């Protein structure tokens, strides 16, 4: 257990071989939040998006087809699980893997939507998510090469991780989660299916919150 004056007390640890996951007050809170929204994605049905035709009084509601709904829900749950993993992870490489899983599931949630605008945005975001694996994994690899370990437990408070690795980790998470400053990503949330689309936002914000903690800790 490490107790740095950054994220509150350590609560518990889970051991998976060399990968030791842990919960602190901070990551525990984030974990609970992710869990809450994953459960919401499982139990709640999507909304019936209302479209209005501006300039006239016409409006119509759409229903989301069942196969699309099931696929979106599956992806949202996968995204939720990846987020849970990223929140609990106590290992930098494991964290980066969870991050890229969040990236791919985020695309998955909207990939099946038949809306050209959304698909276009999802594709552009996907390109960013893919190239973001370079700084992401690169950051983890530099941590390993320069400290000999990937375990956040071993690294905590030692200030041994070079600035380059920290920058890379943050950049990588930005690419996977926030697609430059989030603005591009806002476009893909125009897709229907509220509880699932919301998961995109939940996962990327939580991911960013977690990487801030990691960068401050190591």
């Amino acid at each position, binding site marked *: 257990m490490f107790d740095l004056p950054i994220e509150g007390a350590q609560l518990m640890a889970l051991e998976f071989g060399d990968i030791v996951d842990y919960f602190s007050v901070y990551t525990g809170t984030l974990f609970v939040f992710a869990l809450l929204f994953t459960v919401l994605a499982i139990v709640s049905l999507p909304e019936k998006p209302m479209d209005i035709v501006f300039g006239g009084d016409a409006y119509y509601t759409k229903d989301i087809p069942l196969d699309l709904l099931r696929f979106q829900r599956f992806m949202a749950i996968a995204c939720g699980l990846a987020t849970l*993993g990223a929140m609990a992870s106590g290992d930098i490489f494991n964290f980066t*893997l969870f991050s890229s899983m969040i990236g791919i599931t985020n695309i998955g949630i909207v990939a*099946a939507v038949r809306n050209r605008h959304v698909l276009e945005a999802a594709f552009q975001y996907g390109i960013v998510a893919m190239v973001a694996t370079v700084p992401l994994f690169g950051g983890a690899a530099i941590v390993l090469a320069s400290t000999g370990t990937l375990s956040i437990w071993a690294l905590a408070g030692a200030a041994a991780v070079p600035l380059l690795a920290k*920058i890379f980790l943050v950049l990588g998470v930005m690419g996977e989660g926030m697609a*430059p400053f989030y603005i*591009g990503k806002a476009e893909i949330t125009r897709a229907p299916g509220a509880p699932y689309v919301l998961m995109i936002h939940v996962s990327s914000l939580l991911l960013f919150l977690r990487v801030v903690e990691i960068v401050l800790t190591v």
Partner: protein
Amino acid sequence: MIISRISRILAGYENLSLLYAVLVIAGIVIGFTSIPGIVYHGDDLYPKTIDRSSALDPYDRGGEPFGNTSVAAQYPENSPYLGYVTAYLTPFSQFLADTTSHLGTTIVSHPGGIIDEILYNTRGLDTVVETSILFTAFAIASFLFRRREG
């Protein structure tokens, strides 16, 4: 005005990768300054003794089956059976390995060997996540593909 001009660039999703590229290049430039301070730690190596006369030779990672072959782990206490998988071959594979020279204990020829020791035992969760990523990506691709087909 400069602000609305920047806003217009930020607003277009076709500029996403462009923006990200700028960010990363800036990151590289800033990060470059920290390179001289990096000290290389290459001591995570698996202590190997390669036996050239072994039938497994090109792919042999050494060690004895079912024995505690030493593997460098961060928390050895969490993997009590560390090293057992390293030299393990199924009986049939063992037979082939003894009679031919096509088998070994590395991942390129067989499950077993140090890479699997790390993949399965000490860093098993990595592999779980990795295959989950593959699985999700596959789900996306095949869903889109089959809808296109059908």
